[in-house]
């Protein structure tokens, strides 16, 4: 019996699965590009596709100052906003995939370790301080409106601080590292949320500002914001990609991964660092947008290969597409008024996730 097995040639299947992974990435990329253009061409003000493309080509050539009217709106407002949605969606999608891989839990999302709560606390502090500091600074050059821009800085610091606190707390625990991390994340998140709520209620004037920030806001995205966010987002996602194969091995169990040569401690630290970096970059400029990080990896897993070398880029592209579409919805459903994009992702994401689950593996 054994001898016949040796003689029969085994068909080379790896290409099919690997090709599927590659195909998913390329396909998602193309879809994303189309969705970006579609989204840029739609919004509160009617702008034709031709005007949109004209604005794009002019702007890309550096002639942005020559644009007038709706084309100026397209280049100055629409494109940065849509591209920021794509970047943020990519960060959330890949972080979500990495967290799901690291914790081997399909319900993990980028905000697991308290990143969102930390960012919200930082932003609330920035908003509170901006009201109080302004009168004091009104005589100085600082009056030149730097205070709303404190929000990205404060929320990044808050996000990073929350993650570090979670890690330190987890180390003190006696349980296995993964459960420790999860529990600490929940505790830290809870404490930070109460602190944030307390601050918000103390300063009722800021209540709406913080609340609307926390629901996600892409409306004020500019080219310079994009430039600031890009290095952090890219480093975070790059770091995650470096650990892709390690994440694969981790799916066999921590012990097995170790014996196959994976340094699990380094893997954990690297993935958490990368995911936190990417997520903090996203949250700092745009607020807390839910569901994208949870749903995109699940959707991409069903379409393509579950290997993280394919899954991470695919989830980034899938998350980007999801958020660009959600932002399009937020801007057009009740135009010219807008919905907070976090509301749209939850309203769409919830049923979509349910549908994914019902379809089965």
């Amino acid at each position, binding site marked *: 019996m054994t001898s016949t097995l040796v003689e029969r040639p085994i068909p080379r299947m790896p290409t099919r699965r690997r090709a599927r992974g590659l195909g998913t990435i390329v396909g998602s990329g193309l879809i994303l590009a189309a969705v970006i253009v579609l989204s840029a061409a739609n919004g509160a*003000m009617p702008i034709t596709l031709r005007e949109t493309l004209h604005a794009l080509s002019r702007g890309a050539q550096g002639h942005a100052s020559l644009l007038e009217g709706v084309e100026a*709106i397209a280049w100055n*407002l629409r494109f940065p906003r849509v591209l920021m949605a794509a970047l943020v969606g990519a960060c959330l999608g890949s972080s979500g995939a990495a967290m799901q891989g690291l914790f081997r839990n399909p319900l993990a999302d980028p905000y697991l370790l308290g990143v969102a709560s930390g960012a919200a606390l930082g932003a609330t502090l920035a908003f509170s301080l901006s009201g109080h500091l302004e009168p004091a600074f009104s005589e100085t050059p600082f009056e030149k409106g730097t205070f*709303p821009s404190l929000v990205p800085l404060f929320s990044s610091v808050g996000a990073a601080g929350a993650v570090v606190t979670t890690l330190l707390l987890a180390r003190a625990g006696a349980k296995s590292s993964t459960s420790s991390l999860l529990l600490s994340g929940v505790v830290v998140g809870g404490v930070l949320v109460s602190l944030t709520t307390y601050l918000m209620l103390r300063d009722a004037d800021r209540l709406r500002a913080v609340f609307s920030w926390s629901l996600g806001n892409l409306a004020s995205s500019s*080219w310079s914001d994009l430039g600031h966010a890009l290095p952090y987002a890219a480093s975070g996602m790059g770091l995650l990609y470096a650990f892709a194969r390690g994440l694969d091995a981790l799916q066999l169990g921590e012990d097995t991964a170790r014996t196959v040569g994976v340094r699990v401690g380094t893997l954990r630290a690297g993935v958490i660092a990368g995911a936190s970096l990417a997520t903090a970059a996203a949250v700092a400029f745009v607020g807390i947008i839910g569901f994208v990080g949870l749903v995109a990896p699940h959707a991409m897993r069903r379409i393509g290969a579950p290997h993280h070398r394919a899954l991470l880029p695919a989830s980034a592209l899938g998350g980007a597409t999801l958020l660009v579409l959600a932002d399009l919805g937020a801007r057009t459903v009740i135009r010219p008024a807008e919905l907070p994009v976090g509301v749209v992702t939850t309203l769409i994401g919830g049923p979509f996730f349910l549908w994914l689950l019902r379809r089965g593996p």
Partner: protein
Amino acid sequence: MGPLSRSPVVRVFLVALVALAIGCQRDAGIAERTGAAPGSTSSAYPIEIRDDLGRTVSLPAEPRRIVSLLPSHTETLFALGVGARVVGVDDYSDDPPEAARLPRLGGLYDAHLEEIVSLEPDLVLVSEQARTEALERSGLTVWGGSARSFEDVFRVIQTIGRMLNRISEATRLSETIRKEVIAVEQRAAAGERVSVYYELDAAPYTVGPSSFVGVMLEKAGGDNVIPAGLGDFPRVSPELVIAGNPSVILGVPLADLVARPGWDRIAAVRDGRVYRLPPEESRLVVRPGPRIAEGMRVLARRLHPGDSP
């Protein structure tokens, strides 16, 4: 009675007497409901008044110790001349200066219940958004309401006046305010309309034309770039503001707008006609109280800087 009863003069006189008697009965009924004889200037206690939450508030006697938990109510109380009776105010009541010196009793969501009770007020004025059950359970008399539109301001002033036996003062106050408002409107009508955008929050949240601030802007000579139909406090697309190209922008500092993508092309930004109202001015604009005419003057000054205030 004899032959006199058949005289037409007597008959008319009797009919008039009966009519007067009936009329007085009806008036007495009104007095029971509103605590005031029509055209009279004093309230007849005890009074029952409905507040904006649909509750019935009973005042057995003229209130002597009043707590106000809304800045516009505080201003109204002082404007009606009963400021001396106010024993405590909320954290934001800073107008007039005497009010600022009173004990602070918390904000919209976190009123200091025990402190309020310890002041033993016989009337507490709150906004309709406040949670009145806790206050009532402590045995206090609570009136919940506020002006939610421009016209509503006068209704609230009258109601507070009735509760405090200051009806004539309330009427006089309302008339004064109306006269000032008309004066501002006339001056605005004499000049050109100015397109304006008023921002509440950087999201951006703004005011719709039918909101309180929206009506003030309109009367002060401004044309809101935000169309009707989006609600009173809509969150809009920045594209709408850019396309509307307002000549004046209120509520944000200029430096903030320059940083926003695409906003530097707006007429108001190019001309530098962007004003963040300082606190002493913005409170006049957003509080639906006795100083709305001053608030309108603040707005008018920004819209037409060349005119005299």
